[in-house]
């Protein structure tokens, strides 16, 4: 069928298709024969492969717009919304705006032909420049770090450490060697995420007091990812991961991990 011959062409979007139809029918962009163009547009869209739903929906939105314009144009002109003018006006404006950028994109293609042929040079610093380290000016480096500041930094670090110490246990005097149980850590991680809460991966590992605890917490996270209980996304701004409940989160602890390691 001749009218559908263009359906195999790839259009960048509904505006691109509309411009194509306007050019093909040799009609003015300012006086679009809306019935004719709408029919052709809808014919095209209905023949479109429907795999890419996002793309199809953008084409359907335009179809609705065209049908709306068509309906308004069929109404008697002397109705109360006369001051609105031509129902096609906004569409015409959009088409011209789009056509402008489509044209500029094509213009850029010519520049691109030259630009991509220019090659730059890899860094080639002489060895002595590469090996050079500027002498450190301690006064400049320390800048606003006064003695008082240094003290408050120390206080802060020690306070943070104090906060971590488990005073309940330390009352027993000698602290027994801790056994770390992956089941407990899984429960701990789950608790952190319960109810759709989000958790920073760094902060989570930071809750471990001993190295063993950190390692086992890490293993617990891996296990939960494997079972689909946990999902993680990257937080590139903070060089971190964000953990949250996965789709298959269950409240049961995997029994094989209930044993100690």
């Amino acid at each position, binding site marked *: 069928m001749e009218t559908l011959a263009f359906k195999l062409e790839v259009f*960048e*979007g*509904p*505006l*691109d298709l509309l411009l194509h139809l*306007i*050019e093909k*029918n*040799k*009609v*003015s*962009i*300012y*006086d679009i024969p809306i019935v004719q163009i709408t029919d052709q547009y809808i014919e095209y869209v209905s023949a479109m492969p429907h795999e890419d739903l*996002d*793309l199809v929906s*953008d084409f359907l939105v*335009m179809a609705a717009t065209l049908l709306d314009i068509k309906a308004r144009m069929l109404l008697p002109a002397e109705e109360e919304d006369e001051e609105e003018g031509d129902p096609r006006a906004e569409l015409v404006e*959009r088409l*011209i*705006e*789009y*056509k*402008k*950028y*489509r*044209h*500029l*994109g*094509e*213009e*850029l*293609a010519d*520049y*691109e032909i*030259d*630009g*991509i*042929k*220019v*090659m*730059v*040079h*890899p*860094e*080639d*610093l*002489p060895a002595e*420049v590469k090996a050079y380290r500027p002498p450190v000016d301690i006064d400049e480096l320390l800048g606003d770090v006064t003695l008082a500041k240094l003290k408050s930094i120390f206080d802060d670090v020690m306070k943070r450490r104090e906060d971590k110490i488990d005073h309940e246990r330390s009352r027993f005097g000698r602290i027994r060697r801790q056994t770390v149980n992956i089941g407990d850590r899984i429960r701990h991680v789950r608790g952190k995420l319960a109810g759709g809460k989000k958790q920073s991966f760094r902060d989570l590992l930071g809750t471990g007091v001993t190295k063993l605890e950190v390692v086992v917490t890490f293993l617990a996270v891996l296990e939960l990812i494997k079972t689909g209980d946990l999902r993680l996304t990257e937080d590139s701004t903070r060089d971190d991961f964000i953990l949250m409940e996965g789709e298959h989160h269950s409240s049961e602890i995997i029994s094989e991990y209930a044993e100690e390691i």
Partner: protein
Amino acid sequence: MKLDGMIEGILFAMGSSVSKKELAEALDVQEKEIEEAADALEARLASEESGITLLRLDDRLQLGSRKECYDALIKLASHARKPVLTNAVRETLAIIAYKQPVTKAEIAKIRGVNSDHAVNRLVEYRLVTEAGRLEAPGRPILFGTTEEFLRHFALSSTDDLPDISAEKLAEFTEEAEAESTEVEV
């Protein structure tokens, strides 16, 4: 060695672009002198048909090979060729270049289609980058072009982008009207 030679040697060793300000500090001269020496260097490279050319990227300078060397170069090197953009991506880039800073929503409105994919491609190619946030609900990201954009399209500044003159615009619409009168029904 004269200043233009020094600039040439420094740009060669650095490989990347260097700002005129940094060059002025490293060479202990005024930025105005760097500007003059850059002109001299550009003229010298052109006059003696050097295979190297001076690129100006806003207020930064960089050396590049001349495009005439390209064919011989790709025979020698399996150079990672710069990506050639598809129409959709280039169209999106044109909108960003001329309207920057601009949000994904504005781009989608002009193109009539969701353009997230095209914008993401451009960010990946480092032709486009985040340029702040719009002070509006949701604080959407604004996008603008990069130095790589200038290099990719052999431009010195976004001011050198091809004009959309009033005439050109009129041409568009006339074209459409002319077509319509021809086939008046």
